[in-house]
């Protein structure tokens, strides 16, 4: 008796089953590409949801024992008491990456003095940076969380602004988390969403830190993970 289903046809060998699996995989990749979903992030999300966390770990982790993972584009960066210390002056520090979507977490981010600090994401070309920065910015309009775009080392006016005039800006270690997903960027302070913005210019790139003017800031550790 002949079976008429594609998978049940008599005489089908292992090579045909393998081809069917390849076709299914290509179809999935095509659907992800059309919808603009980063394939690597989708894969990591899938394996993580099944509890296979070991297969798709962090893209980058640094607890600031030294500056070996970082490129100093400008400014005064150093390690003090196991923390990254930046400032005073205009400073930019980068770690290059090629991923598109990720969650960037900075623990123990503390502003000691000055008008704020920045965290770069999707950044390339460190000496003339192209990318985005989230800024913890008590100096902006009475205090705000903002997101800026950078073009060849030039900063543009913010494309996202969330005023926070009553925020406790100084000498409080904070967790800064930035979710970089598609064209949307969401910044969280201590687990709470503070500002969200969208821009389609840059699709991949690394992370970094920024100081300016009289800023002195400290950062305890940084991790870059697949988007959850």
């Amino acid at each position, binding site marked *: 008796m002949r079976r008429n289903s594609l998978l049940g046809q008599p005489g089908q060998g292992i090579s*045909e089953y393998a*081809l069917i699996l390849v076709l299914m995989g*290509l179809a999935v990749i095509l659907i992800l590409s059309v919808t603009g979903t980063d394939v690597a992030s989708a894969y990591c999300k899938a394996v993580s949801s099944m509890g296979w966390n070991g297969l798709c770990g962090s893209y980058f982790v640094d607890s600031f024992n030294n500056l070996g993972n970082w490129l100093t584009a400008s400014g005064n960066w150093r390690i003090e008491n196991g923390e990254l210390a930046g400032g005073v002056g*205009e400073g930019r520090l980068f770690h290059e990456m090629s991923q598109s979507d990720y969650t960037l977490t900075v623990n123990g981010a503390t502003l000691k003095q000055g008008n704020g600090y920045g965290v770069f994401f999707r950044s390339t070309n460190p000496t003339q940076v192209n990318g985005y920065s989230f800024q913890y*910015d008590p100096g902006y309009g009475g205090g705000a969380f903002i997101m800026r775009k950078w073009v060849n080392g030039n900063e543009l006016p913010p494309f996202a602004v969330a005023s926070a005039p009553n925020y406790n800006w100084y000498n409080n270690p904070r967790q800064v988390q930035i979710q970089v997903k598609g064209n949307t960027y969401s910044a969280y302070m201590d687990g709470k969403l503070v500002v969200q913005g969208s821009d389609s210019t840059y699709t991949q790139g690394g992370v970094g830190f920024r100081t300016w003017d009289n800023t002195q800031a400290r950062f305890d550790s940084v991790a870059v993970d697949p988007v959850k």
Partner: protein
Amino acid sequence: MLENAPSLKDYKRGLPSKPPAPSSARWRVLVMLVGALMLLLAIIGVNVARSDRMAYFTGTGTVTGVVIDENGKPIQVQVFVLKTNIAIQTDSTGAFQVSGVPAGQGSIVVARDGAGNEFPVAVVAGSMTDLGQIKFVGTRVPGQ
């Protein structure tokens, strides 16, 4: 001599299916290979459409303009075309002309002393788009 002959029990469910003709198996493999190739070409096509290389297919145009400061005076600035490597400088009259700009919706950035402004531009392939006078506001204060 007949020890290995099949018994009637072996045919309890009817005669066994005949093996398929070799040509039908080859046909199925060919269809699946063609299907895989088409999917692969579609994936490549989608990624090319999303990349900067698409400009080669959509064509390019020219963008012109004059950059002035907040007082209405022409200034010399850098002009960048986003999502490309195109970068030029305005002349002493603040005028610029940028060729090879990918057709479609895009943006240019005028920048000076570490600060920049972004301006949207719609470029038509083979045509010149004149932005007229564009005002550069470039206060170089990092928090502002």
